[in-house]
């Protein structure tokens, strides 16, 4: 297993080189010259030339690409071009509110979805199954924005149960601020999660071993919890863990509407101001997270299914 982990970690190198190449090409060939945006509406031609020099945009493309690669492997992203803030500090400070919002909501959403999926799988084809499926489809059909506007207006403004917007650092200060967006996050996640988990569980329910278990006289509930759920875990683990990088990168709409100073807003600002170092840092960070979590998923498979061997 150690060898496998080392090999998978080594895959990081070509993947990061590829990510660097793609963001470098996109920035240099598609985005164009950032100096006019960075200097504001009164930028002069001379200033733009000076700034290009200072930002290293006059270096050869190869040199610029190696600068990107260097920062990817050293994790030293320098300072933001637009805010002049240190990027590592921006990310650390932004990751906290993003995670305060998304992580608890994600855990609750996953647990709820799994429970609901088991229930509807248990009662498959019956009224409750149909009702929940309709709810799920209706849930995913409504725009996230509609939920946000509705919940913020009624539960925060009209009933005054929650804060309308804002954020405070530190536990438990942040709870009143993330409670409502967290609930919206859960509701938004339930639709797709329940449908996916239900499908996976139903796939297992029709397997031979379920029939055998029934023949042996095990109860449906016991079969569902002890056998079906365990065998359905591999696709569920994959689905759940792959979502984790997105949690860290924040939930942009929720962050914007609830004024949570998370990473979603930082990324959007960077895109709107051609702030290449921040865009680069966020792209590299998400790639590394994605790879590490894929590896973690593979390791979890061995626990979920002893037949899986990592070679």
């Amino acid at each position, binding site marked *: 297993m150690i060898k496998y982990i080392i090999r998978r970690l080594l895959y990081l190198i070509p993947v990061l080189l590829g990510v660097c190449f793609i963001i470098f090409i996109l920035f240099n060939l598609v985005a164009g010259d950032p100096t006019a945006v960075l*200097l504001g509406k009164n930028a002069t031609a001379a200033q733009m030339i000076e700034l290009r020099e200072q930002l290293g945009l006059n270096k050869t493309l190869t040199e610029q690409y190696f600068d990107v690669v260097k920062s990817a492997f050293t994790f030293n992203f320098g300072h933001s071009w637009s805010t*002049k803030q*240190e990027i590592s500090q921006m990310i650390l400070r932004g990751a906290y509110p993003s995670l305060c919002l998304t992580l608890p909501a994600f*855990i609750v959403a996953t647990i709820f979805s799994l429970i609901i999926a088991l229930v509807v799988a248990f009662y498959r084809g019956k009224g409750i199954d149909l009702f929940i499926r309709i709810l799920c489809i209706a849930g995913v059909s409504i725009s996230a924005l509609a939920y946000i506007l509705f919940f913020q207006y009624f539960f925060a*403004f009209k009933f005054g149960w929650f804060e309308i917007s804002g954020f405070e650092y530190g536990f438990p200060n942040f709870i009143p601020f993330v409670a409502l967006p967290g609930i919206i996050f859960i509701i938004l996640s339930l639709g797709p999660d329940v449908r996916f988990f239900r499908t996976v569980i139903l796939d297992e329910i029709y397997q031979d071993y379920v029939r055998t278990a029934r023949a042996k006289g095990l109860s449906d509930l016991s079969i569902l919890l002890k056998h079906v759920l365990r065998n359905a875990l591999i696709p569920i683990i994959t689905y759940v863990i792959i979502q984790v990088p997105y949690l860290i990168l924040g939930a942009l709409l929720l962050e914007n509407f609830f*004024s949570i100073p998370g990473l979603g807003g930082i990324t959007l600002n960077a895109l709107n101001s051609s702030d290449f170092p921040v865009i680069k840092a966020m792209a590299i960070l998400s790639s590394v997270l994605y790879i590490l979590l894929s590896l973690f998923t593979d390791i979890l498979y061995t626990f979920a299914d002893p037949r899986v061997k990592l070679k």
Partner: protein
Amino acid sequence: MKSLVLVVAITFLVFGCSKENSFDEREINLISPEKISGFDPINASDKYSANEAGKVYEGLFEFHPLKRPYELIPNLAESLPVVSLDGLNYTFKLRKGVYFHDSPVFKQNIGRELNAHDVIFSIKRLADPKLNAKGWWILDDRLVGLNEWRIKNSKNEKTNYEEEIEGLKVLDDYTLQIKLNKPYPQFLYALAMPYTFVVAREAVEFYGKEFLNYPVGTGAFVLPKFEQSSMITYFRNPKFREKLYPSEGEEGDDKLGLLADAGKKIPLVDKINVHVMVESQPKWLSFMKAKNDLLEVKDVNIQQSITPDRTLKSDHKEKGIRLIMKPMLDVTYFAFNHDEPIFKNKKLRQAMNLAFDRASYNRLFHENTAFEAQGPIPPGLDGQKKEFKNPYIKYDVELAKKYLAEAGFPGGKGLPTIVVQTRSDTVSRQQVEFFEKCMEKIGINIDIGMNTWPELVNKVTKKQHQMYTMAWGADYPDAENFLGLLYCPNQAPGSNGANYCNPEFDTIFKQATVLQDSPERTDLYEKLNEMIAFDVPWILGFHRTDIYLTQAWLKNFKHMEFNHSQFQYLNVDLEVKKQLLNKF
């Protein structure tokens, strides 16, 4: 399962826990609709960064908070400068007894007295090539020796602040002299802008790259450390000098209660909370819940605030909310790229102007609150005659068709499809779609080019467009700031994104910009404004209106275009707040 119960319990525990309004302190709550990136004055180029910088830093001058038209008054300067007859030498006397905020950058953490060296250092910082400040344009090629110093230091490893510059001299601790290389009538405005706010050299050197997070100024409020958050809290500067609330304003200010605090020492509140809120709904709901004291009303909130006849809605009146509507010093326009051969055809430009239905556009996109622009200069500035009517600012499809035929494109035949570049947000797209429909009526085909802001700026600065949409807000109250948008030497990548070149216009503009405020200069501005009206280098849009709602307990707020120093004058009436809060 236990953990699930715990999470659910915590979630429900917070039900009913939204924070109540506080009456313990004299605090005001404001909104910043944009994220603040830092507190370095030399980069405070947008209105919202300038507003935040203005709470902790100060300049030599500021705009009178009540008088209109805008009047410059001394702030860190003791008085207006003594200016030589040729208008090139300015001698400034500094106010004594102005201290920087207490900070670890000073000996024993106690803020020291401001002196003339600080002013010179702050100006040199603005010119520092290593910092490439957004505000450099206000001094670029203005002061004797400053550009040479900048060029020289751009080649050095480190900027040499010790080197003397002929145009910047300290005469004594409280006196400095600035020498211009040509008359610059807007110079004092430059010294009231955030870019020239005075910083302490010790703070710049102590914090280095982190300076932007540790504002150490002389202003009415203190912010020990800035961190990206959803709220910025400023505290009253306990050592702020004896600065008094003005005892005179413009006519009517007395009736509005704006002189009730006349003669009182400012600041009048202990604390300012600035809530960073980007989206319209939370801003609106938060104001309507009395969590904020002032709301800049935009977009969808306009309909929620005012009636079609532009008065405050009755349910807001019952809560004591006040409405303030004032024209902005700005202009919106559709710019032609004059480097494109087709737009050298004046009749075509005039035809397109006549086909633009401004009344419907105003109703659709500005709730009828904007004013049709008769020229680039907004009303309220010298150069825009009240009675002047632009002959091409009318909606006349038949006349537009006639002009189009005279331009050589009868019914639009022979005219290629014109691409109008705009931003990719919904409103910008809808605005160009409306324009497209107007042009369709005379046979002109329009395509929409959707861009992110960086893409749009890039296309304009590289002249890779046929037309684009833009709005320009005043940097200072002088028509030169608007007319410069059509001055040939300013063409892209400068602010003349239309690349308009008219030698006659340029000659008069050059004459006007070296004149001090005078009837002669106003005449020249008016001439330029009318020249633009007839030559149609842009399709003029609107001068928009600033709409504010204030809570009844917020005192001393008056609409101000350049309001970065205004917050020190605000006050709160806690009795009124207590009485009215039950209505929210």
